[in-house]
């Protein structure tokens, strides 16, 4: 069966790594030592294998994935375009380098996500850092180690294989001689190229604590909004009255306060002031009239999503014959599931500090796509990308919500108009309104199974939410799976796990419905239809730890389970819920088993899984964007409930460590199991099947 198209709401990773000419000067500024470049194009890779190394003045390859530098003073610095936003890749990538260089992690510095000093990178999304960037850094570090060992062996006339490497030193146990990384790097003084696909060792799998945790617990770390530049002003933007509104008239005369400047360019109106408070007062003094078209409201959302987008292609694929499968079934089930629009709600709202220096622009901003934001800025101001530097400090989370650069562009526009650096921090209301949402969706499922629990037919149609994890992992001979894009109702985009949450919610809820129709235990029913050994392993691990089938839930309680796979991770989730008065659902206990190949950092992996479960609880039980005629009605944390301490269940994580398999990313997939597990547990507790996310109390009352 052909693959469905890539997830439409996420960019695919392109091959265009460009090593720009202005980087060469910067490389010279490194001051010699050993520089290892990771070459990713086929042609240049062949050349790299052929030549292997050269001096600092050679023509450098153009397609570079990352680079690693060992300075004459022994400092090890790895450069990557990936961004840290709480997924702890600064730690895991440091581990990759330190393990290969056999030195303490504290010796390794990571330069991340600064477009002027790191190689081009598409962005930090799609759980790609662990499967791609970590092995790349590992290869470079291994190559650097071999080079340093080689240099020492040559110098001492020793056999390289007899030398040892530990804690930044190369030693010869036979002669007792030793030399530091810095000395060897200075003497070597070369640029070495390694191929992107060289073999790589598996991770050691140790729980290194967050490398810069101390900066965070002391408040020393500066997020984008904490940056400060000389003469910096604070900006605010006049927002339209509704989506798609056009500015009719604006009167900014009342905003003429000391130190305030109003900046207008077409429909863009903003203010700058010496502080946020004054900027806010000036903004509210502006009188503006807008005109907006009539727009869809939340009540009409799901009917609207069923209308296909006129120009969009439908993706459908089939195997076997659905009709035959349905005829062969003893029981058939048909049901529809819906998923609301939700907001990422990163605790750090979008923020940017922009500074012009002649025709050059520097912007500090929280983003998953520093090079994407650089491109947006270059386009917005009609300047070459080389004139734009985007620096992404470790960011206060994103969850797929910080792909775009509008805040950076707004700050740069204000800075240009003001002639001074400008800081712009989106308010929570702006963050809820003017970013983008996880797509809402409608999913129709029709299925059939035999009395002995074999699924014979599967028809699955997803309107709008997306194609991630749309394929059932079960062994079903007759199936049709369709993704139908809809006309966009609200601005929508990437989100942690993308549509995999919606598709798992519908599929794993439906599997329980089908199991119930043929009178079979949900675990047994799944096992009977699952050939995928990796999913079976996590399903068994979760069920075993949860005690599935060994106890009956107390009155008003229910157990539910769900399993699946996405982005190289296998997941199974068991949940116990209690349903109280007025349909209040409390998730009492969760056991989640996860397998993503070889575990890199067990403690951080557990942290990610626990966090994904918590975030998943929000979408499962509370979160939904309410909107009416182009306006968001609940754009505040007091109106849009996200999970809090009291919502956190007891969580047990079971890690299935497959040291024999390459490591997959783990920031996203652990989110997909909780919603269907909870839906299935609510059904067991109450006999009511809820087919909408979020599952609200009124649906149970």
């Amino acid at each position, binding site marked *: 069966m052909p693959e469905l198209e890539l997830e439409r709401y996420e960019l695919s990773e392109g091959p265009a790594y460009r090593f720009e000419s202005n980087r060469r000067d910067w490389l010279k500024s490194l001051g010699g030592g050993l520089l290892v470049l990771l070459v990713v194009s086929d042609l240049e890779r062949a050349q790299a294998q052929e030549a292997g190394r050269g001096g600092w003045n050679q023509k450098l390859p153009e397609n570079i994935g990352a680079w690693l530098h060992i300075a004459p003073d022994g400092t090890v610095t790895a450069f990557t375009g990936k961004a840290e936003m*709480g997924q702890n890749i600064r730690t895991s990538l440091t581990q990759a380098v330190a393990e290969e260089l056999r030195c303490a992690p504290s010796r390794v510095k990571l330069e991340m996500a600064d477009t002027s000093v790191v190689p081009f990178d598409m962005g930090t999304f799609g759980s790609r850092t662990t499967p791609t960037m970590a092995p790349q850094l590992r290869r470079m570090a291994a190559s650097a180690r071999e080079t340093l060992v080689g240099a020492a062996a040559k110098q001492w006339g020793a056999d390289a294989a007899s030398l040892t490497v530990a804690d930044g030193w190369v030693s010869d146990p036979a002669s007792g001689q030793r030399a530091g990384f810095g000395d060897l790097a200075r003497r070597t003084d070369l640029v070495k190229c390694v191929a992107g696909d060289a073999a790589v060792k598996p991770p050691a799998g140790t729980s290194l*604590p967050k490398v810069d*945790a101390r900066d*965070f617990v*002391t408040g020393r770390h500066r997020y984008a909004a904490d940056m400060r530049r000389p003469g910096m002003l604070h900006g605010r933007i006049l927002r339209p009255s509704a989506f798609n509104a056009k500015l009719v008239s604006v009167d900014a005369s009342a905003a003429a306060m000391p130190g305030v400047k109003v900046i207008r360019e077409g429909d863009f109106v903003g203010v700058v002031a010496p502080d*946020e408070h004054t900027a806010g007062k000036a903004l509210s003094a502006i009188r503006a009239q807008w005109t907006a078209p009539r727009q869809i409201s939340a009540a009409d959302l799901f009917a609207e999503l069923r209308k296909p987008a006129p120009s969009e292609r439908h993706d459908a694929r089939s195997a076997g014959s659905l009709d035959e499968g349905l005829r062969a079934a003893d029981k058939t089930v048909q049901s529809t599931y819906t998923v609301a629009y939700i907001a990422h709600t990163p*605790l750090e709202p979008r923020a940017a500090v922009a500074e012009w220096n002649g025709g050059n622009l520097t912007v500090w901003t929280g983003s998953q796509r520093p090079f994407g934001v650089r491109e947006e800025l270059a386009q917005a101001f009609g300047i070459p990308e080389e004139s734009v530097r985007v620096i992404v400090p470790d960011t206060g*989370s994103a969850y797929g919500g910080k792909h775009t650069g509008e805040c950076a562009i707004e700050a740069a526009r204000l800075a240009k108009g003001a002639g001074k650096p400008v800081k712009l921090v989106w*308010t929570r209301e702006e963050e809820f309104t003017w970013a983008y949402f996880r797509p809402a969706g409608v999913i129709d499922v029709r299925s059939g199974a035999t009395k002995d629990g074999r699924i014979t037919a599967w028809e699955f149609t997803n309107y709008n939410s997306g194609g991630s994890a749309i394929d059932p992992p079960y062994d079903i001979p007759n199936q049709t799976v369709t993704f139908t894009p809809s006309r966009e109702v609200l601005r929508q985009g990437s989100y942690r796990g993308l549509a995999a949450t919606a598709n798992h919610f519908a599929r794993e809820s439906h599997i329980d419905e089908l199991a119930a129709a043929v009178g079979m235990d949900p675990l047994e029913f799944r096992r009977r239809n699952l050939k995928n050994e990796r999913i079976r392993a996590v399903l068994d691990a979760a069920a075993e730890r949860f005690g599935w089938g060994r106890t009956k839930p107390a009155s008003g309680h229910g157990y539910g389970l769900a399993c699946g796979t996405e982005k190289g991770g296998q997941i199974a989730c068991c949940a116990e819920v209690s349903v109280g008065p007025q349909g209040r659902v409390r998730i009492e206990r969760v056991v989640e088993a996860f397998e993503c190949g070889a575990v890199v950092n067990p403690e*951080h992996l557990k942290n990610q899984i626990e966090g994904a479960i918590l975030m998943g609880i929000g979408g499962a039980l509370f979160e939904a964007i309410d909107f009416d005629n182009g306006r968001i009605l609940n754009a505040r944390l007091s109106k849009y409930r996200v999970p809090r301490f009291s919502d956190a269940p007891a969580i047990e994580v079971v890690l299935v460590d497959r040291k024999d398999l390459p490591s997959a990313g783990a920031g996203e997939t652990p989110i997909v199991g909780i919603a269907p597990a909870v839906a299935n547990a609510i059904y067991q507790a109450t006999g009511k099947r809820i087919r909408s996310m979020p599952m609200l109390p009124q649906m149970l009352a």
Partner: protein
Amino acid sequence: MDLVANGERHRLNVDPERPLLFVLRNELDLTGTKYGCGEGECGACTVLIDGVPRRSCRTPVSAAAGKQITTIEGLEDAGRLHAVQQAFIDADAMQCAYCTSGMILSAVALLHRNPTPTDEQIRRAMEGNICRCGAYNRIVAAVRKASTAITARAEAPHA
């Protein structure tokens, strides 16, 4: 007006209505205190005023004048982390860590009131602090760890 932040007195000429949060961040460059929502719902802006946790985004600077303000930058003592800060590191109780300052200050205030809280009491006291990354159970564990450390220190014979 006079603002006493982390034991240091500052003389400031600012609009008394301006939220304390922005005065701390802009005038005193104490950026460890974060903006999250502006309506006191998320706790990222939590500071201690005379030892009591307050939402600095909803506190006019005039209400804090002359009082003892403690921000995250004021917890370290001569390069030694506060027990709660250390416990957050040890329990890996953060991901993006944007909530961490507010979490730590809420926990410090709780342990000051009640040095040996139950898990339930910790959760209740911290309910107003949001960790969007969902490290709640780890934060509870960190507060428990800090409680143990503080109690042990208090019980240890003084040298």
